[in-house]
């Protein structure tokens, strides 16, 4: 487990995070977010001082496990209703840039 050293939060880390979450940032945004995230993380770091030895994690707000639905077919939403919100469409498809090499 790496210890998080937030005082050293760098612009390079912000750029890396932005590439992971696919958000284009300007250089001034990189610097602003670096400073803001470092500040927020400095407040959050108190968490690491809590003794959680042997404590299980809570990952569900409701204590429910393996809720199952009946495996019955339901009518799907009409295609036109869904495609009506597409930023760009072509016939019955969402239009996007080619993602595969066309050669």
């Amino acid at each position, binding site marked *: 487990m790496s210890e998080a050293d937030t005082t050293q939060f760098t612009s390079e880390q912000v750029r890396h995070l*932005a590439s992971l979450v696919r958000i*284009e940032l300007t250089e001034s945004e990189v610097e602003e*977010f670096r400073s803001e995230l470092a500040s*927020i993380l400095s407040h959050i770091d108190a968490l*690491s001082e809590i003794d959680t030895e042997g404590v299980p994690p809570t990952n569900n*707000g409701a204590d429910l496990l393996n809720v199952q639905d009946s495996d019955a077919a339901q009518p799907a939403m009409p295609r036109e209703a869904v495609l009506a*919100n597409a930023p760009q469409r072509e016939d019955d498809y969402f239009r996007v840039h080619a993602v595969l090499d066309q050669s």
Partner: protein
Amino acid sequence: MSATANSELLTITLADGAKRLRAGEITSRELTRAFLDRIAATDDRVRAFVTVTEESALAEAEQADSLLSSGDATAPLTGLPIGLKDVLMTKGVRTTAGSRMLDTLVPPYDATVVSRLQEAGAISLGKLNMDEFAMGSSTEHSAWFPTANPWDLQRVPGGSSGGSAAAVAAQQCIATLGSDTGGSIRQPASFCGVVGLKPTYGRVSRHGLIAFASSLDQIGPFTRTVEDAAMLLQAIAGPDPLDSTCYDAPVPDFDAELDRGLDGLRVAAPREFFSDGMHDDVATTIEAALDLLSANGAIIDRSPSMPSVPMALPVYYILAPSECSANLARFDGVKYGYGARQGESMWADMEATRKHGFGREVKRRILLGAYALSAGYYDAYYLQAQKVRTLIRREFDRVFAEHDVIVAPTAPTVAFKQGAITDPYQMYLNDIFTIPANIAGLPAISIPGGFGADGMPVGLQFVGQRLDESTLLGIANAYEQLADWSTIPPSNVGST
């Protein structure tokens, strides 16, 4: 209709309105028209609404009136006009979540709570402003415009459900729905002097609620009275096959338990909820409320300590951004909403879509979440936060082993001036007393508890046991009977 009769309708409650509609004393069309006129007269200042659905509201009112006049109006909310936070999907009605990303979204389906309100006969007046994707505590982070506090137009209404709270306070709606991930119903209810209820996590279906942090999000009502909150919760609560995190538990008759009274009620006031950061006028007001509860039969116990509760805020600012970074990954500019198309590749388009589609606060939280979840930091942040979440839940369980309900201030301050808080972490501190209930999945309510020195409302919060909204509503109703602050309206919006 005359101006006086019109303004008299604006202070109506759901409970009273339902009776008067059935008795034929008023019509749904009169009622709906009165609120639409009020919106037209006041919303240039309050700015609670993103979308007003006047035409469909009046058409639904006509239908309600014909049901009422033929005696076929069996649904409990028949003909009563309400408003919806713009984070709830509404079929055929633009739904933006306060974001440019969803500027053009016209949903093809209704959220479960929206269909349930329709089945209950309610009429929607439109969609209410909010912080973008429900991230914020002031409604200053809406992509469209900030909403003002009806008590003082220079101040914020709180957030993220600021439009929902302001609309009820400004008498633009009888009641509204909001959503609460870390206090987004209760803090604005406190700032605007109205009732705001966050039900138990899993009491109300989240299907069709645009997700922020899925293990914390919950939908709930804003109303003028506790009785109305019970009525609205009754209409929206209960299991839903479209949300597998909904409890398959029977929904009690909330109204039947409103009059249980205070006698012998064991009320915990844990010291961590009465700590530093609370402003003097909030402290004074809450102390007076505790005295009143105590003088009327409640047993106030100030001895409980919940040492992990101050950790709820850091836990939240790991868990909520982490969940949001995953939930908001869906906004890729392909299927709906805003999509940039000037780039040279799919990735360039996606990065441009998210650059222009998201506001600053949303970007900051997505980045923070991605950091907390990334390799090397997951154990130190995300997993550690989930473990501390368990400790917080255990402390609530311990307190509830000996007490019926917890009392606390809703927010550490009254509503602040627009633009007054620029540091993100200072803004996050607004939710210091509301976040613990979300972390533990517990129901909590904020009701008007009095006024601070500058005349701004102060909220009184009760937190209850899992699935025990009845006790919460009972104590809240008892307090409201003793000190009905809700009858004092804000005077800054202008009378009709």
